[in-house]
């Protein structure tokens, strides 16, 4: 993909004396990880399609501190949090949307006590609200009738009780939503949370992502839908480990919707 997409920054808005309706918090994975960047772009296309007045922080964005906090480094977490909150408050940000459940959880639950109070939405919740407001239409397109199973990200599901928004979107694609043995509040982790993404797993007899991928493959999906860039990586690796790349795709909900309409 080399086409240019328009992505306004908060600084540009500020220069024009304007304020966007919503800040898109891209997150580290969404900014740097090659796979996750595709999710970021898909989501931006949907924002444009729905004519959402949004901006990003761009180079002023920094890690929320989630992996540091979960690794036990509360200092680093709070340093990151306070720095980010300073930036967000300087721009008088009211509403934030993000495609990363870890950023979502941290900004929504852990920033308020440190002075950062915003309305925070996961991109699946945001897309669902756009749909309800009639700003976005979803067609099944090429996913019509496909078997799709949704892998609940821990930090969206159990951590924040968001189970239905992503599923509602999948149903709108006229796809067949199939549930894994462990789903919703009983969903099995992909293995990346709690800073595990950045280290090798402890000694055991299996990788967590392989276990989870096996659960997914059991329900014979065409697509494993994810709502988290880290889950996406873990499930993609799991599918590779099981030699199922030719049969099963791992895609973010935003990508499903954008691809369905050939955006």
């Amino acid at each position, binding site marked *: 993909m080399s086409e240019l997409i328009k992505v306004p920054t908060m600084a540009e808005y500020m220069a024009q004396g304007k304020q966007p309706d919503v800040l898109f918090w891209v997150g580290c994975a*969404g900014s740097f990880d090659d796979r996750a960047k595709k999710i*970021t772009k898909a989501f931006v296309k949907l924002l444009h399609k729905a004519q959402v007045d949004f901006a990003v922080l761009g180079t002023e964005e920094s890690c929320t501190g989630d992996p540091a906090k979960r*690794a036990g*480094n509360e200092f680093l977490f709070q340093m990151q949090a*306070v720095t980010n909150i300073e930036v967000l408050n300087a721009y008088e940000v009211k509403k934030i949307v993000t495609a990363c459940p870890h950023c979502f959880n941290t900004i929504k639950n852990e920033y308020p006590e440190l002075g950062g109070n915003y309305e925070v939405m996961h991109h699946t919740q945001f897309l669902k609200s756009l749909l309800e407001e009639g700003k976005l239409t979803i067609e099944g397109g090429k996913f019509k009738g496909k078997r799709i199973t949704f892998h609940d990200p821990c930090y969206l599901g159990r951590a924040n009780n968001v189970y239905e928004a992503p599923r509602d979107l999948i149903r709108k694609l006229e796809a067949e939503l199939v549930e894994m043995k462990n789903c919703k509040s009983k969903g099995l982790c992909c*293995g990346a949370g*709690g*800073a595990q993404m950045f*280290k090798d797993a402890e000694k055991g007899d299996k990788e*967590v992502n392989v276990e989870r991928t096996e659960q997914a493959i059991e329900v014979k999906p065409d697509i494993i839908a994810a709502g988290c860039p880290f889950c996406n990586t873990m499930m993609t690796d799991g599918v590779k480990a099981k030699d199922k790349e030719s049969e099963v795709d791992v895609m973010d909900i935003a990508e499903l919707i954008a691809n369905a309409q050939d955006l």
Partner: protein
Amino acid sequence: MSIIPNILFAIILIAGIGYFATNVKKLVRNIKLGRDVDVSDNTSLRWKNMSMIALGQSKMVRRPIAGFLHIIVYVGFVIINIEVVEIIIDGLFGTHRIFSGMGSLYGVLIGAFEILALLVFVSVILFWTRRNVIKLKRFWKSEMKGWPKSDGNIILYFEMVLMTLFLVMNATDVHFQAIDNGNVISQYIAPLFSGLTESTLHIIERGAWWLHIVGILIFLNYLYFSKHLHILLAFPNTYYGSVKPKGELDNLKAVTKEVQMMMDPNVDPFAAPAEGDSTEEEVAKFGASDVQDLNWVQLLNAYTCTECGRCTSECPANQTGKKLSPRKIMMDTRDRLEEVGKNIDANNGVFNDDGKQLLGDYITNEELWACTSCNACVEACPVSINPLSIIIDMRRYLVMEESAAPTELNNMMTNIENNGAPWPYNQMDRLNWKDE
């Protein structure tokens, strides 16, 4: 009529309750060794949680078979114990079935007790079978060897014996069987004793009566030494359990203070602490390396744990063969807390450093680093225990006090510090994706 049995009964009763009270005091003291934590918020939600989760068993039934059997034993336990009131009055005043004057209502009550006693007996047999014959995996994990395994079975034997004694007591009560009011189950047991004389029956009845009440008192006192404390502590534990979203970890106040100092150019780092500011000593340590560093709700959690292992069976790390078991985290915390408590008892109320701690001597770094913080254990617990909060507090100690994180995590943290991302990419390149 001799009053010796009544005096004997009173002595046994007072001794039984007295010893239990002493241990409850110890329990409360041990729990209070934990740091203070504010749980005065959301009172109505907390009451609701307690009534739904503890009283209403809402999380138990997520696993329908165990949940159903547990409800029978729980309801049976609570209701049959109404009978204990009568036993105590009879025992103290030498009366016999003091409430039988209530007539048909008495029959209904005793009838209900008898039915429940039978149901409890059957459920307990099934529980025993699940543990010992079917050998459900979660009861055979490595932390369940030795005492925890025996403890689980002893509790079941206690319940079997107590229910049997209750039914035998009724079956051999000639007068009670003659009235034929409420003996719905015991009338079928009575024929087993049909060949015996009335005086033999009386001896058996008295024997069962005494063993039943003494058994109950022993069981009561067994609680403190057993995982079975949950029958009492599930109530405060579900009340004090977290009312925040599961994903929210607490922000360490001590760190907030230091970070504010670092960020605020106007703060004088060498300023003397304000008058009466005693926080200086409290912040001496970040995170937890021993039980006293945990808060009292976490310690209450440890005493409440009944080692059912639902947490461990849902844990992704444990499922894939890692050493981490959330149940073991709770068991270790309790064991260490007991050890600290005994140390305090032996040293006239002061803890004498024993060169041991929760971290290392009980819980290893390997267990702590295997956690994905996915909250499956927290979700699975039927009594609102949070093993994750202990894991995170111990990681905090490892990282902030000992700089003992795995190398890869140190790299990740260095990256965040230097360029605001867990990977070594320049912050100035954050928006490059839009042009790629």
